[in-house]
C-alpha cells in the first residue's frame, strides 16, 4: 500500500490477492449502520456481484449499475487484514456458513462496520454462488475487532 495524504483523506493503493491493484480514497469517517436493515448481496462463484438490495446500494455509496458485475472486494477496506478473511473460503468450501466482523469501504472513502454472514448457494449439489447478509454489530464487537485486526496487519 502506498499512501498519499491530502486534506480530505488519503489515496491508498489497495493490492488484492492475485496482484490486481486499485487506488481508493480513504476518509476517517464512520457511517453508522442503519437500525433494522440487512444488507444483502449475491455473487457468482468467482465473487462477482450478481444481486444487491437497496440497503447495499445506500450504504456502499455506489449505484446499482456500478455494483453489478464488480468484484465483491470493491468493499475491501485497507484496514482489514487479509488473514481476517482467511477462514472464509475454507469454511464455504465445506458447505457451511462464515461469520465475521468486517470494516467496509464506501465509494466516498468513508467506512461502515458490519456483522457479515456468507453462505454458499447450492443448487442440485453445485455451488452456483454465494449470498452475503450483513447486519448491525455492537460497538463492543467493533472495538474487539479493531484491536484484533490491528495486531494482524
Amino acid at each position: 500500500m502506498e499512501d498519499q495524504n491530502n486534506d480530505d483523506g488519503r489515496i491508498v493503493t489497495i493490492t488484492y490477492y492475485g496482484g490486481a491493484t486499485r487506488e481508493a480514497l480513504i476518509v476517517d469517517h464512520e457511517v453508522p449502520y442503519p437500525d433494522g436493515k440487512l444488507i444483502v448481496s449475491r455473487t457468482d462463484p468467482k465473487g462477482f456481484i450478481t444481486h444487491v438490495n437497496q440497503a447495499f446500494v445506500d450504504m456502499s455509496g455506489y449505484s446499482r449499475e456500478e455494483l453489478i458485475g464488480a468484484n465483491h472486494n470493491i468493499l475491501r477496506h485497507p484496514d482489514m487484514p487479509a488473514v481476517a478473511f482467511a477462514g472464509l473460503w475454507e469454511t464455504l468450501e465445506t458447505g457451511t456458513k462464515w461469520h465475521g466482523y468486517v470494516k467496509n469501504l464506501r465509494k466516498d472513502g468513508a467506512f461502515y462496520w458490519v456483522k457479515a454472514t456468507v453462505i454458499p448457494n447450492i443448487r442440485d449439489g453445485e455451488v452456483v454462488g454465494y449470498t452475503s447478509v450483513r447486519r448491525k454489530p455492537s460497538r463492543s464487537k467493533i472495538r474487539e475487532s479493531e484491536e484484533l485486526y490491528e495486531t494482524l496487519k
Partner: protein
Amino acid sequence: MTLNLTVSPDFAPDHIAGWYFFNTWLQRQLGNAVHLELYDSFEEQRQDLRAEKVDLIYANPYDASMLVRELGFEAIARPLAQPDETIIACREDAEFESVEDLQPGTRVATTSDPDVHTMGMIMLEPADLDSSNISIAQRSNYVLVAKSLLKREADIGFFLKAGYQDLSALIQNQMKVLVTSQISVVHHTLLVGPGMREQIPLLQERLLAMHEDDKGRSVLESLGIEQWESMDRERTEFMIDLIDTLIP
C-alpha cells in the same frame, strides 16, 4: 381424495373466516374436496407436515425453508408487496429510546413465531444482548405480548409488524416502537406438497388471476391480501438462503 390445506399458526385471528372462504374457493377451482386444518402450535403443525398429512400450506418463511429443502414442497405464490417485518416495542413510558439503551437482564415477551423471534434476537445484537443475558417469556399471540408489556411483566416485545398494526389503538397508544426491520424480501408463501405437483399449473393460473373477478377479490380481501404473485424456484431458493444466514 381430499386435499389438506393448512396455514402458518401466526395468521391474524381476523383472517380465520378468510381462510375458510379460501378453502371453499380452492375446492371450486380444483374440483376436489379440500379440508382446512388450523393449528395453535407451530410444533404440532410441523409434526403433521413431517407425517405428510399436508398438501397445501400458507407458510411462514422459516418453515418454507424446511418444506422446500427437506420435504420437497414447491412455493407457487406469495402475496403482492407484503414482506414480513419485525417490530421491537416497549411501553410508551419506558426509559429507553433505542435498542442500544437496553441492558443485560432485559425481559423479553415473544411468540413461537420463528421468523419474528429470530429477527427480534438479531435486532438485539447491537446492544450485546442474546439468550444468555436476557430472560425470554413466550406468549401465544401478539395481543398477549402487548399485555405483558402493559402489565410490566416484560420490558420489550417482539411483534410481526402486521400483528402490531392489528393491535387496537388503545393498546398501541401505550407503547412505542424501538426498531422496525426493513428486510423486504422475506415473506409468507403458498406451497404445495409433492403429491400435488401435477396441479401446480392450474392452481397457479387461478391464483394469479384471483383478483380479477369479484368472488376471488372478495376472498382475497377477507385474507388481507391484495393479489397473489408468482414464486419460481430461484426466488424461493434466494429467500431460503437469506433465512439460512440468519439462523444461529
